[in-house]
């Protein structure tokens, strides 16, 4: 401590400034180096692989856009479009169903209910993956409890289909929507509703002209977030349907594990690049919207 004091005494302003700045750079550096390796290398590998073709005969590699073209044709295109369709439908439904649920929670007078729903949403929004698939298989699968007791098999119900997947995806998309939209709903001031009422507006008019315009950025933001979340989902579909529904994630997994033709790994990388581009587009829409909605919440 004495040493520190003498040093501080000896070197006034300049060194104290330097001392403050130095830890800043040094503390951020490991994070940057780490991501450059752990995230950057795979990213470079995707980019590089997506644009290279290896000639099996001569073993030489050359740069081409062939993989990308292949990834947008035939079964690959079907899978990509299947993913987009599935994500769009489940995101739209998730947003439509999540909004009233969030509204019911926000306007509730029981703080305990609100806390419980938000906590549950936090768990369920991260509940994608394997356990979710199994819960639904146990409920509505071929030997599922509801399938057996309600005789759903006779009605043509099939969990391992497009709509089955939508039903399952909603299980984590609706909570995600609730989490995304709740802050915006909290931001709707009661004074606005009262002001609208005082001016003779009906509930419908209030929603149409006041609440919805304020909520719109958050709603759209939530929608694209849900889309991205459904688009990237793999574990649920893989554990549940195998490959009966064409999805880009399942195609990539097949190609990586060599379940299809040998030498398709680079097409898998091209498909990955397609996915990154779609996801990038989603984030490019989401981030500005989120910033816009933040204006009302301040």
């Amino acid at each position: 401590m004495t040493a520190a004091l003498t040093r501080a005494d000896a070197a006034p302003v300049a060194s104290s400034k330097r001392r403050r700045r130095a830890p800043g750079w040094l503390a951020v550096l490991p994070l940057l180096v780490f991501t450059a390796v752990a995230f950057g290398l795979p990213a470079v590998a995707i980019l590089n692989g997506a644009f290279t073709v290896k000639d099996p005969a001569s073993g030489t590699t050359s740069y081409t856009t062939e993989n990308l073209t292949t990834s947008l044709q035939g079964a690959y295109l079907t899978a990509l479009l299947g993913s987009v369709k599935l994500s769009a439908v489940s995101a739209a439904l998730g947003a439509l169903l999540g909004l009233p649920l969030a509204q019911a929670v926000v306007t509730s007078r029981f703080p305990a209910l609100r806390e419980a729903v938000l906590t549950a949403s936090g768990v369920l929004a991260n509940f994608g993956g394997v356990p979710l698939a199994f819960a639904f298989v146990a409920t509505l699968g071929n030997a599922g409890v509801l399938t057996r007791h309600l005789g759903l098999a006779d009605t043509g119900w099939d969990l391992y289909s497009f709509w089955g997947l939508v039903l399952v995806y909603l299980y984590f998309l609706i909570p995600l929507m609730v989490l995304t939209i709740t802050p915006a709903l909290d931001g709707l001031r009661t004074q606005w509703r009262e002001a609208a009422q005082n001016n003779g507006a009906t509930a419908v008019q209030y929603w149409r002209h006041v609440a919805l315009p304020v909520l719109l950025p958050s709603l759209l933001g939530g929608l694209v977030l849900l889309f991205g979340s459904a688009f990237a989902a793999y574990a649920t579909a893989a554990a549940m349907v195998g490959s009966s529904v064409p999805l880009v994630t399942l195609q990539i997994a097949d190609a990586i594990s060599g379940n299809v033709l040998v030498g398709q790994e680079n097409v898998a990388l091209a498909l990955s690049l397609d996915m990154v581009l779609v996801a990038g587009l989603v984030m490019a829409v989401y981030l500005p919207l989120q910033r816009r909605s933040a204006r009302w919440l301040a």
Partner: protein
Amino acid sequence: MARLNLWRWGVLGLAGLYFLVPMAASVVFTVDVPGQGITFDAYTRIFSTDGFVSSLLLSLGLAAATIAIVLLLMVPAMVALRLGAPRLRPVVEVVCSLPLVVPPIAFVAGIGTVLKWGPEHLSRTPLFQTFVAIQNPDFPFVLVPAYVVMALPFVYRALDAGLRAVDVPTLVEAARSCGAGWPQALVRAVLPNLRGALLNASFLTLALVLGEFTVAQLLGFQPFAVWIVNVSGSQAQLSVAVSVLSLLVTWVLLLALAGAGGRTRTASRG
């Protein structure tokens, strides 16, 4: 008003139905086996089933390593952003959001390609041994950096929320005025104030690693989530029973966290 309440309870009731029925049905599925009647066999069998303990321990070990590394990387960086390097803020923000743009399946496709470079280009260099070592099935270290990257967005948000509630510069200044060194100021003054945020970040990372399937499966390792899927083919009841248990454990952990830190809302937004 009465009509409004009716509507609200209707919405909540329907939501409750949708979210609780699969849970309840899963439990029924595990105890009411066709042809056997009510039996708790699936639950008692879990611990004795091959691979349960080892895969769970592997997942927990991976989670511990991931949490340690992600906190060691992120806490100093986030504190530094508040102290002396605000200009780096956008950089860190972008770095921590990038994993959101790359879906796990694309990420693992990239990792797999990188790992193939090892045998192809490095077989004569000492680096090759590292490639082999990090892919040791007993503790595949290669998964840890992947999980750290995937956890970055969650950890960033959790820590950011925590730091927002703390006046870090004043805190550090006070500690330094009292004669504390940099490490001491961080550990004794800043970190205790971030307890809630650190818990949140750790919990979210733990949940992520325990449930992670994509990367581990495609790289050919068998932590917990991959094990459940592998066991489901032969023992459907058992795999559902394990799923139910894992959800219960996650739920209890989060509720305990909410109770301890009183920070339910930041936790849920992660």
